[in-house]
């Protein structure tokens, strides 16, 4: 199936990521897939055009530890996942508070298979700010 894929758990995620960096792996991106009752969070790395992926099976409702302390480049995509899937990410290097992609009044977690009904828009005159 997916090229060079390795399963990890929440506990050993950070050590797995940290062990790859000295080997010359470059962080490519992360992908989050809604599986129904859980998420697949994929961490894609690259070395000499060879893709290698860490797969984290994250049950819904659990928090995702941020790898942005190890790989700064991950901070943007983690914020995106937080916005679009409603996953609570802990330890972000820069936390946009759920406003990285979505503005006030936008649908919450729109990329879930069954997104929650839209909440009432936030108070008037509260523009999105950085």
């Amino acid at each position: 199936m997916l090229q060079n894929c390795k399963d990890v758990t929440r506990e050993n995620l950070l050590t797995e990521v940290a062990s790859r960096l000295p080997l010359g792996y470059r962080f490519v991106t992360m992908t989050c897939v809604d599986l129904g009752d859980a998420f697949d969070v994929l961490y894609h790395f690259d070395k000499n055009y060879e893709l290698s992926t860490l797969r984290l099976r994250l049950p819904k409702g659990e928090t995702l530890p941020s790898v942005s302390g190890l790989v700064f480049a991950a901070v943007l995509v983690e914020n995106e996942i937080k916005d679009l899937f409603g996953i609570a990410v802990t330890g972000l290097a820069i936390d946009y508070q759920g406003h990285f992609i979505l503005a006030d009044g936008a649908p919450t977690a729109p990329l879930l298979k069954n997104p929650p009904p839209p909440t009432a828009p936030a108070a008037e005159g509260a523009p999105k700010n950085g």
Partner: protein
Amino acid sequence: MARKSVIPFGPQHPVLPEPLHLRLVLEDERVVEALPSIGYIHRGLEKLAEQKDYIQDAFLVERTCGICSFIHALTYCQGIEALLKLEVPPRARYLRTVWSEMHRVHSHLLWLGLLADAFGFENLFMQAWRAREEVVDLMEVTAGARIMLGMCCVGGVRRDLTDEQLAAVLKSMDKLNRQFDDLIPVILKDYSVQQRLRGVGRISRETAYERGAVGPVARASGVARDFRETGYAAYGELGFVPVVETEGDCYARMEVRLAELYQCLHLVRAAVRKMPSGPISVTPKGNPDGEYVSRTEQPRGEVVYYLKGNGGKNLDRLRIRTPTFANIAPLLAMLPGCELADVPVIVLSIDPCISCTER
């Protein structure tokens, strides 16, 4: 008199054609901190892709970006073809390469014009876009549209080129080559251009690699990474070697792109001359099942498509990581310490494309 002021840079900023917002903290005119924010034009394209079938998605993903549209479709189609285990006919692979490189030419020229605009060189801006018109016209002649070619489909391409059209392509390449000869050496030697670009926004090779820089940003810092080296489409048969510079500043990024302009002409010519005969597409059979990560090199760098099929006509998940998304983190390393006057130049030196970044 170090007075701190905050300059909101973007999203509706006249120098930046893209809705990127940068919160710049300045000390006099020196940037001490920059925080980006996007999200002004999020279109939910990944969600929409789940609702269309995998054939229609080829047209949808092409609209991710209005500049490198063809290569988006190409990346997507290569991913689906890998899932379906389709063998694309050689002529289709060559035609894909030709259109990809035309897109790179038009993208780099567009970028050159915008960069010139950012440092106030109106004449260069006009000359670059004038040259770009040549290649955009060529795309209209060969594919029937100027930017949204719609030529890449799962299994091949949708339109064949006649021998006359191929000859017209070669002729246009010669014309472009002459225009480049007029323009490019002049830009590289121009005193004022060097003044504005040399030593500005420098990042080291290590920073570029750690922060995941891709495309010309990485190559200008000495990271010799160009996905065309892996030989997708017809690149493996055309003798491709990536362009690399080592300085890592805005000038080096410009050098890389300008050298790539010539390289694109070379690749198009080589592909047209070696163009094999035969069919241009195969009909896809079955539905995609499984996961695949498809990657290609866009004008801005490596694009990543994650595709997950479930055996049905619709995809379970389509994720796009565009090159600009990867280049924002390196951008944040370039900005602190620069002058305000250099900010537009540095931002443009990564060739930002925010609309595709947000999808």
